[in-house]
């Protein structure tokens, strides 16, 4: 059983390293943030599997903290452009313009 958990953790670690390609390539910042979010979930799973492999129950707490705080980076990400919304347009109106007017970059 230990070997199985460890193998599963190793597999998940490999998926993280593969997913790094998306962070490196982008192209948009949304893609990068999404990849980081996926890594967070994968990390939680690895920690849970390791807690059984290494017989350290405290790792479940570590996983709990990761799960709890995974959202903070995403919320900080959406606060980028914390500037007031340009010209106060409703959020969905500006879809369809492929490129933003360069105003708030």
């Amino acid at each position, binding site marked *: 059983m230990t070997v199985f958990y460890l193998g599963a953790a190793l597999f998940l670690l490999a998926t993280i390293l593969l997913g790094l390609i998306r962070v490196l390539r982008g192209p948009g910042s949304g893609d990068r943030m999404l990849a980081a979010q996926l*890594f967070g979930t994968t990390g939680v799973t*690895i920690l849970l599997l390791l807690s059984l492999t290494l017989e350290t129950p405290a790792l479940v707490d570590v996983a709990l903290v990761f799960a*709890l705080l995974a959202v903070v980076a995403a919320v900080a990400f959406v606060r980028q452009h914390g500037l*007031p919304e340009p010209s106060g347009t409703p959020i969905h109106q500006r879809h369809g313009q492929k490129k933003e007017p360069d105003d708030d970059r």
Partner: protein
Amino acid sequence: MSDLLLVVFDLVLLVGLLGVAWRCLASTDLFRAVVLFITFGLLLALAWVRLEAPDIALAEAAIGAGITGALLLVTLERLRSIAVERRRGRPDEPPDPAGADALLHALHDPPPPRRTFVPALTFALVVGGLMVTALWHQPDAVGLEPVVDEHMGVSGVDHPITAVLLNFRAYDTFLELAIVLIALLGAWSLGRYDRLPARPAPGPILPGTLRLLVPVAIVTGVYILWAGSHAPGGAFQAGAILGAAGILLVLARPRDLPMAPSTPLRLGLAAGVGLFLAIGIIGLFIGPGLLGYPPEWAYPLIIVIEVAATLSIALTLVALFIAGRPAGDDH
């Protein structure tokens, strides 16, 4: 079989860590560097787990996932807004001539000039090589584990790391709390800038998540603080979790909250250092020395100090995140 897999796991993890650090420092796009740094923190927590340090992994989880990432992302936002403001110029002044350039540089760093390549590489190789040789020739030692183990009986707690932090080497922890406070004073001395404006939540999901997460974060923080006396956990980790919850609130608040009243805020920020010092001085007169406790009083005193330190660390982290003096206190 299991040993072999562990070795493979270690190697893959370390290769990943080094690769992420390398790509992070080689990025021209700062946002990419920050996301890679967040990933670096995650992998680092796994490395601490492999080094049998769940306490450190817990702290890294709270700080790496919750605080550093948000701090860096918000710093990028501040830099961008500064650049945008400069480019727009003020209505009563001509626009900044360096404006467009400044915007380009705000979130991008051009590749470094080639002439620094050889000296930097040589310097880093020499330093790294010296460290590696020194490490390989260092003899194995048991360290201080037996000494700590021997004295666990008088420490007042059951978890060796908490015993070291709050009893055997209490002065380290005391000075560390002081440094955290000094960092905050330094940030405050820079003025009252860059308050993040409150924004209405984009849709119903964020407020709902907040309503779930913030109470759970508070309960988890208290749980981690309580667990510290007998298992991995303690004041730093709890403080970091509560601080991250506070940062989440600052980031996601839909409207401006009333400013924290000045005096209680300052009392809370200084509570950890102050209480620690007070108890330490009392120990000088009735106990075994400065920052020492009589063994029978050790447990309650440690708990009191830990609660105060948790509060102070959490408040300080949030205040460092906001990075400006509270408004209206210097008029």
